[in-house]
């Protein structure tokens, strides 16, 4: 017995020491297990981090959100009043199974995104009427109407060509062994544990792939990811919490990259959704839904800066519009409303709620959202609001929100490169995500117009006007933009913090 104990202890001591860093393999920790690794079907954010290494796109964004060609040879030619988009492809590109990527395979891929059963790309490519292979390296998209956000869609999964051979072999199980164009290729996946990719022999720019293998480890717990980062068991930690980031920075051994994301966090206030978002709107009969003064008072009770300090150690980005500051469409002249408790109380009194007003706010059930909810609850209490918080699981909360069962809902949006993707669905009368059933034809007209014109200054002006209108309506009270914080050892070089927060291993290396 004693001998065995000694042996076990000896083994533990021997192997508990941090293993010598495997310099040829990069280990990245993710906080969530991605869903299916099929660009057509994928929905999760973390899935996109995997795609970033093995599925390149026609276009790519940089740190300033500018769009560059990736698998395309140049930016597209837009003709016919915006109805025709012509894309020249980069020559001599091969999929990771060695088959050539040409106009034909790109057409097949885009058609798969547009037409496959259960495709999650369908709505992103909805404006596309037809895809044509003009010659071996030219693809033409014919649009139903001019749609300026389309280019931005092609910088994400909708712009990922997939190998037609692999699709033919695997069909809707393509995601179990995906084949695209990329510096690395898929090796294996163990659900809830790891995803492994290795250097592709077919990639057109092999010098960019400095690692033989990348292992993605799934570690949902923040502490666990952090402990593994410190012990050297993982190299890159994604989504580090602000508190931990501050502490880690102080230690001085790791580099912290912090970038404002593309999305927003806000409070969605139900205005007219009584029986479901596809049903006709109805009167909810509550002052929160019917009296704009109550909603204004609520917004005036919120101190965005303080919220950011308390909940996020000041590392996120306060905001009051759906457009993140990095975007070229961001309106630099806008000032967010500050906290004004006196005015809030006055407005409440004018609305006949001088004695205080109570409502229920649903929050997604996790400790971070709960903290934000509790801070808001406390801020609002000082202005005469009595908010009860109801945590709901993500899955149920989305459905209940659609069904009109919420008064207020603390929910964010992960964000899109083009502002249209952050606004149109939520703020237009028939928007697919407009669960508050707020409806104003003037806002619709502005947002539709912004889809048609492609001039940046013109679009910025249109968005400014629309934002003025719907932020006064307050069906969504925007409060901050989430930041993406990534930590890695100081010897890791070449990391680019793009606002979509995805880790791009291409071009990075050990110093």
């Amino acid at each position, binding site marked *: 017995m004693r001998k065995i104990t000694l042996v076990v202890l000896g083994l*533990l001591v021997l*192997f508990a020491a941090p293993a010598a860093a495997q310099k040829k393999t990069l280990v990245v920790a993710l906080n969530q297990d991605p869903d299916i690794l099929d660009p057509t079907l994928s*929905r999760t954010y973390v899935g996109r981090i995997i795609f970033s290494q093995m599925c390149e796109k026609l276009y790519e964004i940089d740190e300033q959100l500018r769009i560059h060609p990736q698998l395309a040879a140049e930016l597209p030619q837009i003709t016919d009043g915006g109805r025709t988009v012509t894309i020249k492809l980069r020559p001599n590109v091969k999929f990771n199974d060695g088959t050539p990527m040409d106009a034909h395979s790109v057409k097949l891929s885009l058609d798969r995104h547009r037409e496959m059963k259960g495709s999650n790309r369908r709505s992103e490519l909805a404006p596309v009427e037809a895809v044509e292979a003009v010659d071996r390296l030219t693809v033409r998209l014919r649009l139903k109407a001019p749609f300026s956000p389309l280019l931005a869609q092609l910088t994400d999964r909708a712009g990922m060509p997939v190998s037609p051979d692999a699709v033919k072999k695997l069909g809707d199980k393509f995601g179990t062994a995906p084949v695209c164009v990329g510096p690395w290729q898929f090796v294996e996946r163990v659900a809830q544990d790891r995803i492994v990719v290795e250097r592709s022999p077919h990639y057109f720019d092999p010098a960019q792939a400095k690692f033989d293998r990348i292992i993605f480890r799934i570690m949902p717990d923040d502490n666990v990811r952090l402990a593994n980062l410190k012990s050297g068991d993982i190299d890159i930690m994604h989504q580090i919490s602000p508190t931990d980031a501050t502490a880690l920075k102080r230690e001085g051994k790791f580099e912290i990259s912090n970038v404002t994301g593309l999305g927003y966090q806000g409070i969605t206030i139900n205005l007219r959704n009584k029986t479901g978002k596809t049903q006709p709107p109805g009167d909810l009969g509550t002052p929160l839904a019917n009296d704009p003064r109550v909603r204004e008072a609520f917004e005036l009770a919120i101190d965005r800066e303080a919220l950011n300090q308390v909940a996020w150690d000041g590392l996120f980005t306060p905001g009051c519009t759906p457009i993140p500051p990095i975007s070229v469409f961001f309106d630099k002249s806008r000032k967010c409303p500050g906290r004004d408790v006196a005015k809030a109380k006055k407005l409440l009194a004018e609305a006949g709620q001088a004695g205080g007003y109570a409502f229920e706010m649903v929050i997604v059930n996790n400790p971070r959202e709960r903290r934000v909810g509790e801070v808001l609850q406390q801020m609002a209490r000082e202005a005469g609001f009595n908010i009860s918080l109801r945590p709901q699981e993500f899955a149920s909360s989305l459905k209940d929100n659609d069904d009109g069962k919420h008064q207020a809902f603390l929910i964010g949006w992960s964000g899109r490169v083009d502002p249209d993707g952050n606004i149109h669905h939520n703020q237009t009368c028939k928007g697919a995500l407009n669960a508050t059933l707020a409806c104003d034809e003037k806002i619709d007209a502005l947002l539709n117009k912004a889809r048609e014109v492609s001039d940046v200054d013109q679009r910025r002006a249109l968005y400014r006007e629309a934002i003025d209108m719907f932020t006064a309506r307050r069906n969504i009270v925007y409060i901050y933009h989430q930041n993406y914080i990534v930590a890695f050892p100081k010897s890791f070089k070449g990391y680019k913090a793009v606002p979509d927060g995805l880790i791009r291993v291409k071009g990075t290396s050990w110093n």
Partner: protein
Amino acid sequence: MFEFFVRRAFISVITLFVISLIVFAGVRAIPGDPARVMAGTEADEAGLQEIRDKYGLNDPLAIQYLRWVGLALIGDLGESIRTRQSVVATVAQKLPITIELTGLAILVALAIAIPAGVFAAVRRNTIWDMLASALSLGGVSIPNFWLGIMLILFVSVHLGWLPASGFVPWWEDPAGNLARMIMPAVVLGTALAAVLMRQTRNAMIEVLSADYIRTARAKGLTQRGVVFRHAIRNALLPVVTILGLQTGALMGGAVVTEQIFVVPGFGRLIVEAVFTRDYPLVQGVVLISASAYVLINLLVDVSYSLLNPRIRVRGAGEP
């Protein structure tokens, strides 16, 4: 004997049938539309219909149930909505990990419980005995998720002795696997150790006061000889039985333990499946775990009756 076995097996089949009904009804009762979850935030109504058709969510419940049970009987539990991997394959991937974890936990528990229990019985009513029973009560009372957090805090974060988690398959790196499994195994084994220790002590006391032990003593055997040659062996039978009965509790404990230490096993699979409304996965996983429990209990009953014939006479339905 044969009759007893048939009867016991028949009862198990009925229990399994009831279980399948409960599982099926329970999963349908969970609010939240799986089609909505799968389709993501931007799905339109047509897309939702397509998904519902594909997974047969539009069929009458009776049809859905019969289809599910029928396929389950031939070993097909469908495929996960989320990853499109087959449920059976997913479980086959996860189960060995949880079996390893519970196996280690049982080892940890036995390594603590048997020596401590025997010692407490031999030194009955001394300070050692009291210490052992205090420890045992402590083990039952400590919330294992808190124990896990505290272990991570001290052993991993402060001392940096063991990796906080991150599973490595044993065939890739046996030592790394052990280093990562030892804390979860300790956490999972604590409550079991406490139960087993008490059981061992009581069984030992009973055996030590039995006639044949007195005879052995009278014949001049030393205390050591009595304890090691005769008593332990006889005292272990009820302990082993209790161990069998604890499998269900161990599986439940594994859920929390795997959650804390991020062990990608069966327990985390269940929780994740519930939270993502992966109907086929939830149904399959819960059915499998419940069936395993029923089977293990059947085995325990049968083996116990083989070892202890008195049980048979009383019939299966009795406690």
